[in-house]
């Protein structure tokens, strides 16, 4: 042992009784190892507040053509206008949402919207020589009103044009009522309120089907004849 190491060992030995004495009267020092980080994830862990996307961001047009979107915006404003303090479909950014919803939908629904919006624009040009997007409300009423129907759940009208007008009306109204903008202003008793309900997350989703190589199944049963 070199002298320097010998001196260090002697100092440590002399200090040892004092340390032992100190341990008898004071709490143990914190463990040398770091606390497992998972201990900090518990019920008291603060949860960050987040916004809904619509509140801070905007989406580009992905599905409808600019002309179709212009028609949809005018249609939305006519069917669900702002009334009193309540926002209308335009204030609720319903047309942009429908571009996303309908663009994500099965082909028959996409086609019904495209055909319906094109038909409205063609009717406007035929009857008033302007695009639907530029119609006055009374002019739009003359095109839309004849197709409005009363109907029962799951049974919207099936006749041409009435189907699109009434389904689009229901979609535009629901998307508006279900918006944050609508929720933020009080509803009168006869006005729909934004639904609040029990949302179910995916429950133990099946995440493996494409990752596991399945052995072909062969029955081990000698099947009884019935």
């Amino acid at each position, binding site marked *: 042992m070199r002298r320097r190491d010998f001196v260090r060992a002697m100092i440590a030995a002399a200090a040892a009784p004092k340390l032992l004495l100190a341990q008898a009267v004071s709490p143990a020092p914190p463990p040398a190892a770091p606390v497992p980080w998972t201990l900090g994830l518990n019920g008291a862990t603060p949860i960050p507040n987040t916004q809904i996307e619509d509140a801070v961001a905007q989406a580009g047009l992905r599905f409808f053509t600019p002309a179709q979107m212009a028609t949809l915006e005018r249609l939305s404003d006519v069917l669900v206008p702002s009334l009193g303090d309540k926002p209308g479909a335009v204030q609720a950014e319903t047309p942009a949402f429908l571009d996303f919803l309908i663009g994500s939908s099965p082909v028959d629904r996409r086609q019904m919207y495209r055909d319906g919006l094109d038909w409205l624009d063609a009717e406007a040009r035929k009857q008033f020589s302007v695009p639907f997007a530029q119609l006055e409300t009374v002019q739009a009423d003359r095109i839309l009103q004849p197709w409005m129907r009363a109907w029962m759940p799951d049974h919207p009208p099936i006749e041409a044009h009435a189907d699109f007008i009434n389904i689009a009306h229901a979609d535009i109204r629901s998307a508006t009522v279900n918006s944050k903008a609508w929720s933020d202003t009080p509803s009168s008793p006869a006005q729909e309120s934004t639904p609040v309900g029990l949302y179910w997350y995916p429950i133990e989703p099946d995440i493996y089907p494409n990752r596991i190589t399945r052995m072909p199944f062969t*029955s081990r049963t000698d099947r009884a004849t019935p």
Partner: protein
Amino acid sequence: MTKEPVDVLIIGSGHAGGMAAKILTEKGISCLMLNAGPVVDVARDAKQEPAYALPFRGFKPPGRLAHVFQSNEFNANVWVDEEEVPYTYDPANPYNWVRVRLFGGRSLFWSRQSFRLSDYEFKAKSHDGFGEDWPINLADLAPYYSRAEDILQVSGRAEGIPQYPDGNFIPDDVPWSSSMLRFQEAGKRLGVPVCRGRRAHGRDGLASSVNLLLPDAFATGKLEALENVVVRELTTDKQTGLVDGAHFVDRLTRREMSVKARVVVLAAGTLESTRLLMNSNLANSSGVLGHYLMDQIYGVGVTCSVPEAQGGKATAELMGGAGVIPRFRNITTKSDKFLRGYAMNVTSRMGAFEPRNFAAYGAELQKKLDMYYGSAFHMTIMGEVLGHYENHVRINKDVVDAWGIPVLHIETKYTDNEHNMARDAVDTCAALAESSGFEVLSKNAEPNPPGYSIHEVGTCRMGNDPKHSVLNKWNQSHDIKNLFVVDGSGFTSAGWQNPTLTILALSMRASEYLAEQMRQKNV
């Protein structure tokens, strides 16, 4: 390692399987329950949210659950995904197969209307000559109905009408509103009975297998259960031809495993139980397995307004309450347009109207919503669908589900009988509304697609004759004595009634019979 066979293997955890588990375990019989889906923990799996916080603002996620009209974005994840467990059908005759595989099955979400069948259903053929009589009658099932009503805590009122048998009810003493009484008086004028409804209260509003049946079974210490196991086929003893267990696949890992059992009780839901028997090539010496698929027509009805409640004048004395028009056609008279009959749910309601009830939009629509607020009066049908051999399911070997199990092909459609019944219902409701002084706002005589009611029954029907039925009067296979099927597939006719109470009573009765047969070592 070879495991000891369990006494009874129960496949399915809804009302049918839950009742079987309760009865059998309370008699000291060990059971193993298999369920295709996971256990639900509401605290973990669900959360209160406003529609605007959901990606699709509450709309049904596009492209999913095309045949589940009841679905929306809030509940989309509780239904069986049609891509994961597909089924096939002729596009000209679609079928709405509405399924839940969570532990507890559809008992988690049912509407809780609880009606007994009458002998107009049990002995329907004797009454009108169509189809087959059940091998039991109301008197056979009445004691079990009574006990099931006690478990479910069914409220109701004795009406003394033979086609609407009374039961073991929590008294329904709530006074009816004057709009309901007016409607009832109109019914008397037109020969249409308007009665109190009958509904299960359960506990805390939930009347499910998971809170009313399974806790009792687990408390015996005799019930074990597996979640997330998809049964591929039943297995048989090649010496005896009896079932001796099941082969299943783990839903998540795809691990293939099997269990052995002395007795198998199928309670997977009408079409899943039949699919399993067909994929196992069992219990079909009669050739009627899969046939006589029935349900009830829904979606037909009339929406009205009570004029005296319009303009902000609705009061609790005038509006509110619900009732049932039990079947009244073809009881003492005979219709020349259709056999059997329908019931109507009747609701008087003080809330807001749905906008689609008015052919208007914008400010004009809002004026109507304001004007009609609080005056809604609804009538909706529950109509019996006849059992036809042609309405059937079979295995489509060309299509398999996510676990490689061949799927069902469903071939069924409504006939003139159901469509004529629907038109009669709308005409009758409109006449009742007029006689009541109500304003009709909208009506519909076109039924929703078959299956929509989630009351599919039949395909494994009961009967005395093994040549024309799959099960005997104890829900026991004619072919295989240690195989029981206790869900709605055993129904011989559909009736207009919601089937849950009858499924519970039948499962209770079959399970007590099974326990006694096991005690006597006959099974």
